[in-house]
């Protein structure tokens, strides 16, 4: 099964990286989310996908019978929630940026680092 997951995550990470390299702001952020998704798959499969049984101890039993490795599941749960909340933050950031800048082009977004006009000196900014 790990081969299937490896293939999926290679595709997701590659596509995500390519999107993230885009100049389009939302593509960039969705691309990063995809990369995060791919890494989550990586975490998930790190504990070997040996069983399809959920890791629940049967009622009355003291020990877990043969089941999927619970450790990566717990880690992925944490990672999913974190990447989700970052995605939410990036959505808010993106909406606000799109409103303020009026453009989806990150290459045009030079407010923090304005392009220089002088031959050797950086741009002279107005006081904030």
């Amino acid at each position, binding site marked *: 099964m790990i081969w299937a997951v490896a293939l999926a995550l290679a595709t997701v990470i590659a596509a995500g990286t390519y999107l993230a390299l885009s100049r389009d702001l939302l593509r960039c952020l969705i691309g990063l989310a995809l990369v995060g998704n791919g890494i989550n798959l*990586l*975490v998930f499969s790190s504990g070997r996908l040996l069983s399809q049984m959920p890791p629940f101890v049967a009622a009355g039993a003291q020990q877990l019978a043969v089941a999927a490795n619970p450790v*990566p599941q717990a880690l992925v749960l944490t*990672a999913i929630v974190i990447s989700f909340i*970052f995605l939410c933050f990036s959505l808010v*950031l993106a909406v*606000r*940026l799109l409103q303020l800048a009026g453009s989806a082009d990150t290459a045009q977004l030079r407010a*923090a680092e304005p392009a220089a006009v002088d031959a050797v000196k950086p741009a002279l900014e107005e006081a904030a």
Partner: protein
Amino acid sequence: MLVLTPLLVPLATALLCLLVPPGWQQRVSLAGALLLLLCALALASQVVGNGPLTVVAGGWPLPFGIEFAADRLSAALVLIAALMLNVVLLWQVGGSADAAPAAATLQPLLHGLVAGAGAAFVTADLFNLYVWFELTLICALGLLALGGGLRQLDATLKYFVLNVVGTLLLLAAVALLYAATGQLNFRALGAATAQLPASIALPLLTLLSLAFLIKAAAFPFFAWLPASYHSLPAPVLALFSALLAKIGIYALIRCLSDVFHPAPDLLFNVLGWIAVLSMISGALGAAYHWDLRRILAFHSISQIGYILLAIALASPAGDAAAILFMLHHSLVKAALILTAALIFHACGHYDLRRIGGLYAGRPWLSLVFLLLALSLVGIPPSSGFWSKFLVVRQSLVQGEYLWAAAALGVGAVTLYSMLKIWLEAFWKPHPDESWQAPARHRLLPAHAALGGLVVLILSFGLLPESLIAYVMAAADSLRGRS
């Protein structure tokens, strides 16, 4: 319990700041910061007195539970974090020198940032470290976005995108290490990675180091730092520069001492050249810029290069130099940023082309800047000199002449850019002839905060014996040398 206070105290303070009525927020925040400082002092004295402290959350046996462990290195960094938090909050109390906007979310985010950093400094579990990286990241983003202007948001975006890649790589490295060894605890990982074949250990170590180098703003991953830092209000910037990149460096030291030990020479060699390139590009970036905050931000990269160089020397003396350099840089850079804020207060600008005349107008500020700048350049007797001396001496002793030459040469460029600030901001007459230094009202907290820092820095420079002994002992307990 003391080991957990770097996390619990600031986290609880952050939460309480959100829960109490707005009028109480500042009081709660200051009380929390003071308590953290006391805990950090207690932690440091415990560590010095009784050796490293550890606790496993939930009382589970190792390597199953999450371990928090504080040795001298952790304790020192926690102390710096606590100290800087107090300085920043003091600056913020009714201050008028480029203070952060008094938003309701400021205090929780500051405490949250320190909680994440503090926990990262004491955790001994790799996945847990990832969580604390995320906590510092989200708080940093919140603080960056606080102003809400296009400039701040552009900075936030760049910081976000480039740092998220770092944390994602860290997560990938954690997962792959778990896949290869089945462990998450530092020491358990250390034992397990020693058994791994080099063919798999090297890529994993590389991935982990890359994640930390991105966080540490090393060449060529530093773009996020100069792209964002200058958009911050001065006190927040001081906290950022004292903590954020340090977390990456700290994690790298831990990774090379606990998780992968002994790491291959090849890695240290490459790290050394990364350090040299960081030093050079940072110093030249500082020489290029005219905005005080940008100059200082680029200097951070160059100083990070020095620290990485010391780590790359892979020896007890090198590690000691790295730790000393981290402590020195946290304090001096923060103090310089606060000095810049006072310059801003006096002149209304951060850009050297728009300011001047401060040597006559603000003699004490001139003196403070001079002392701090000399420390950054590495003129004795300053904390910067002892740090730089240890790095250069160790490079020479180990026969790394090119590295030593780079370290010294970059010192000359640093001198150049500090001189530029001095000539332009202090000696040059103010471009506006009618300019008068404004009245100094509501600056008392700011002066107190900066004054305290400067006294501390000077005493480190003049009487470095105990500090150097401390970092040497700290270095001796790294890399399985205990």
